[in-house]
């Protein structure tokens, strides 16, 4: 072999570290069908579970007859709330401090609620068993409208809470009231409104939608009656939390509970909570002493697992005549369904909704969120967003548009006038968030230039002047700020566990490495990007770094992956663990080179003696030494664990622009252009960022243009299959144009902020902004989502614009 002298640049390139668009490690197995999802798991002697669900939305269970089901050969058991009662498992705590029925206890509260489970030798027999279970109901009046739920004479939904005048988040003033939560300064906001010359207000409904991951929820629970331990393979975004909850509910010590999240086919918040199906499968396995598999179908997934949003919002802005915003007031009625099962940090029943002052320097603000019960499925998860940030961004971005329209100021200009200026960071918002960094003006200008915004406005003016134009043209603009990376444990916990995350790195003797994390990838490409962080930090090629997550028996405890927290929290844990290793490696290298640590320089993959390029030790050399002959006084081995408790959230931001052309005959909206500029701080793998942005924009498009969960007056969910529920394919999906600026987070060890949810959060109000803009010339200030052809056509008709 010829001795090729590699430059530091060559060596750096060979690491494929931070900043490299490294191909995804995960894809080889996924595109060849070699993934290992929960439903791929088969165990010897495994039984199958299926669920009897309520056909009605509200009713009393008068009788359940299992006889016919039990008579079917191959049916092993039928369990109802009565059977779970002795175990005290017929109800379970929710993440939001409420309780939820595991199996309906005397009453059903929503259509498709779990009433009984059937365990059988195969999936087919289980389904036959479900059909054979006879349940008799007495129907009760149904409450679908959350405003009606608060009427004095509204039916009592939660009889189990009778007499409880306080819930987990304060007093309850009505039998269907869950909590009222406030943030900001009410009197300061009121004073700003009293003094302001301009006031605008807008009511808007952010519809109930469902994250609808490609893989539905399910588990395989396997209790070993001899050893007394429980292994559960589960579709969970937070396996460690599941282990804690399972241990608390079952009484099995946490050391005997193993939770494994194998490959996960998308989560988007839908796989954070604990579902009755999981609990029943685990109980069934314990009772029967055999593995039990439960995997729900699509209809069950959409109708009974966690929904998102369903916020009825009233926003108000106070401003000067020239558009400077002085005050913000927000009132929300939040439809939580039958049980409060929102997945938020404990102290925040409305999540981080109080990020709703957005990218703007607003003097005074106040918001109030009231949660109510209705006869709908429970949930309230963050669908590809940090806790309720989507709702908050939608609210403020819509309000700023409304104000711009009222004052006849361009949408871009009014934003410019109100942005928090670069030099104001770190900036404390009127709700108390401390924004870490941002440069909104630069990003906005870049976006406007990219699409030649003035030319678009000119084209729109020409179209508006032509009464025969077959299309209406709308331009949407959004400048959002997100709050992600939950979160600092002084503010954020889930069931009392602080929202830190963790990493354990072990360097092997020959210089390759394994890292284990408390997070779990569901498509984000952790196995690829995490290795890149270690590669750059430790000078080991990312190719030889194995990343493992999801098995609670091997991975360090972490809170999981949702809320764009993996890079902000776990990514920081990786850097910190790597730095611990780096510090030890430096000691070993100094010993090997017989110099003091202070005489060493780190260069890409090696410690060099300052001033002498020929004397160096690579990280691989050091690894060998650490196992072979560590310096006296140092432990052998080269590994570290770090639990990272973030000092603050991170605040990614972006500027999105969208042009739609609306067919005046059919109401169809065609997205002509969509430009997304994202600033997520340091970019670890630009290709993966781009992929995440494409995915988030596509889901944003789905939400804005088609996703909906309408209920009829009887509480039937209309449209719970993929025939109606809109999942765009490549055919419907617009072409995305992406761009970026880089404003690193000053408090994150890598400067990274997190990105996967920004495109979802940012794009949804952009589509609405564009559709509404198409009608702005006839005085329309807002149209509720989804902007389906049908609904847009109704707006065309109402304003005399339909052809």
């Amino acid at each position, binding site marked *: 072999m010829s001795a090729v002298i590699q430059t530091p640049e060559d060596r750096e390139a060979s690491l494929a570290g931070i900043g490299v668009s490294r191909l995804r490690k995960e894809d080889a197995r996924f595109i060849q069908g070699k993934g290992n999802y929960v439903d791929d798991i088969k165990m010897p002697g495994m039984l199958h579970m299926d669920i009897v669900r309520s056909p009605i939305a509200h009713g009393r269970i008068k009788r359940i007859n299992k006889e016919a089901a039990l008579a079917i050969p191959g049916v092993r058991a039928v369990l109802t709330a009565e059977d779970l009662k002795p175990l005290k498992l017929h109800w379970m705590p929710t993440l939001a401090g409420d309780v939820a029925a595991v199996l309906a206890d005397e009453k059903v509260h929503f259509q498709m609620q779990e009433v009984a489970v059937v365990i059988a030798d195969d999936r087919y027999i289980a389904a036959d068993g479900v059909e054979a279970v006879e349940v008799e109901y007495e129907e009760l009046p149904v409450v679908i409208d959350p405003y009606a739920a608060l009427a004095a004479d509204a039916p009592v939904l939660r009889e189990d809470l009778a007499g409880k005048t306080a819930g987990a988040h304060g007093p309850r003033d009505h039998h269907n009231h869950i909590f009222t939560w406030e943030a900001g300064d009410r009197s300061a906001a009121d004073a700003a409104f009293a003094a302001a010359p301009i006031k605008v207000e807008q009511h808007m409904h952010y519809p109930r939608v469902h994250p609808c991951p490609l893989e539905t929820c399910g588990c395989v629970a396997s209790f070993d009656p001899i050893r007394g331990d429980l292994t559960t393979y589960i579709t969970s975004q937070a396996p460690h939390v599941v282990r804690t909850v399972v241990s608390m509910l079952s009484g099995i010590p946490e050391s005997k509970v193993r939770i494994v999240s194998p490959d996960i086919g998308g989560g988007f918040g839908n796989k954070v909570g604990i579902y009755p199906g999981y609990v029943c499968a685990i109980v069934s396995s314990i009772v029967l002493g055999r593995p039990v598999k439960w995997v729900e179908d699509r209809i069950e997934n959409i109708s009974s697992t966690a929904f998102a949003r369903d916020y009825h919002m009233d926003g108000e802005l106070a401003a000067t005549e020239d558009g400077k915003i002085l005050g913000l007031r927000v009132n929300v009625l939040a439809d939580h369904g039958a049980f409060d099962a929102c997945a938020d940090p404990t102290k925040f029943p409305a999540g981080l909704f109080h990020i709703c002052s957005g990218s703007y320097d607003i003097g005074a603000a106040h918001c109030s969120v009231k949660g109510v019960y209705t006869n709908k499925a429970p949930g309230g998860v963050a669908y590809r967003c940090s806790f309720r940030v989507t709702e908050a961004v939608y609210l403020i971005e819509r309000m700023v548009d409304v104000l711009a329209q009222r004052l006849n100021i361009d949408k871009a200009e009014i934003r410019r006038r109100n942005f928090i200026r670069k030099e104001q960071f770190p900036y404390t918002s009127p709700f108390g968030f401390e924004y870490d960094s941002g440069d909104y003006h630069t990003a906005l200008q870049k976006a406007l230039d990219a699409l030649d915004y003035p030319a678009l406005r000119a084209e729109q003016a020409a179209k508006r002047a032509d009464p025969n134009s077959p299309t209406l043209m709308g331009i949407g603009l959004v400048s959002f700020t997100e709050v992600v990376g939950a979160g600092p444990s002084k503010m954020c916990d889930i069931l009392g566990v602080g929202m830190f995350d963790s990493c354990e790195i072990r360097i092997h003797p020959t210089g390759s490495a394994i890292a284990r994390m408390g997070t779990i990838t569901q498509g984000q490409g952790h196995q690829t990007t995490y290795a890149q962080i270690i590669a750059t930090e430790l000078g080991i090629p990312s190719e030889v770094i194995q990343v493992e997550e999801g098995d609670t028996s091997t991975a360090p405890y972490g809170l999981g992956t949702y809320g764009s927290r993996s890079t902000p929290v776990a990514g920081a844990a990786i850097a910190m663990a790597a730095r611990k290793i780096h510090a030890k490696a430096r000691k070993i290298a100094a010993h090997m080179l017989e110099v003091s640590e202070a005489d060493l320089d780190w260069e890409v993959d090696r410690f060099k003696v300052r001033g002498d390029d020929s004397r160096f030790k690579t990280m691989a050399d050091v690894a060998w030494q650490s196992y072979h002959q560590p310096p006296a006084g140092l432990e052998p081995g080269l590994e570290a664990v770090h639990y990272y408790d973030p000092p603050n959230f991170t605040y990614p931001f972006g500027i999105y622009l969208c042009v739609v052309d609306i067919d005046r005959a*059919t109401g169809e909206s065609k997205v002509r252009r969509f430009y997304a500029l994202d600033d997520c701080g340091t970019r670890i793998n630009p290709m993966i960022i781009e992929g995440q942005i494409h995915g988030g924009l596509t889901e944003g498009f789905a939400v804005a243009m088609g996703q909906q969960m309408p209920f009829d007056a009887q509480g039937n969910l209309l449209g719970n299959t993929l025939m109606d529920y809109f999942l765009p394919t490549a055919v419907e999906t617009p072409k995305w144009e992406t761009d970026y600026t880089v404003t690193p987070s000053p408090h994150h060890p890598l400067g990274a902020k997190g990105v996967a949810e920004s495109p979802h959060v940012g794009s949804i109000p952009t589509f609405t902004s564009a559709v509404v803009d198409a009608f702005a010339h006839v005085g329309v200030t807002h149209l509720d989502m989804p902007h389906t052809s*049908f609904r847009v056509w109704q707006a065309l008709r109402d304003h005399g614009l339909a052809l």
Partner: protein
Amino acid sequence: MIPPKFDYHAPKSVAEAVALLGSLGSEAKLLAGGHSLLPMMKLRFAQPAHLVDLNGIADLRGICLDGDTVVIGAMTVENDLIASDLLRERVPLLGEAARLIADPQVRNRGTIGGDIAHGDPGNDHPALSLVLDAQFVLQGPNGRRTVAANGFFLGTYMTQLEESEVMVAIRVPSFAKGTGWAYEKLKRKTGDWATAGCAVVLRQSGGVVTHIRIGLTNLAQTALRAEEAEQCLLNQPFNEAAVKRAVAAAMAITDPAEDLRGDPEYKRAMAGVMVQRALNNAWARSA
């Protein structure tokens, strides 16, 4: 999403299939592509005790010419309609419209015979067969009979097809020279049934309409042939006023059901838009 138990039969000939239908009675269902039947079975809306699978009968698949009539085997799948040169030459409307049906996977299994026999007003082939003056060849215990598409569709999931009969072929006259055609289908997304659909076939002579068929998809209990709308144009010069009258006449016979695609008002309005577009496109293609 799990169907109840059923028995499966795989006859090798139409005669065998007909015999099975005879012996198994109303408990039996024919299985073609399965893309309408199997979803209903998975939801347990349909619970046949026997499935008689037609996929093993080679005679039922393929497209050929009988004189001037194109004969399409009932088991011919949508993707074969799209790929057929013979159809492109003789009845180009069929392949073109088939592209708007469902999605590529469904089109790979779903058959023209199943699409018609199912009697679903949302399906596209019923209205297409009406405007093509198609004839259906049905084989039962007493042999074969041929019925016209016009009059075949009796109601939702109800047709003239007897329980004991197999649809064998669809016979479609070739387009005369100069025929114009169009299929306009408004849908929410790929793989969706029509919010409103309109098929048109027409011929002209010196600017006057000499032949016209207008068919409507998913706008009533069955596919509709809009005969009064046709009368507004037949033997008339084709112009905006005539089209307007035809559109109004077509809209008048619709009776759409409310669903998440829209309410009756929207669907009726969309019927008008689709009829207008289909007429104009077909006209532009005629000579």
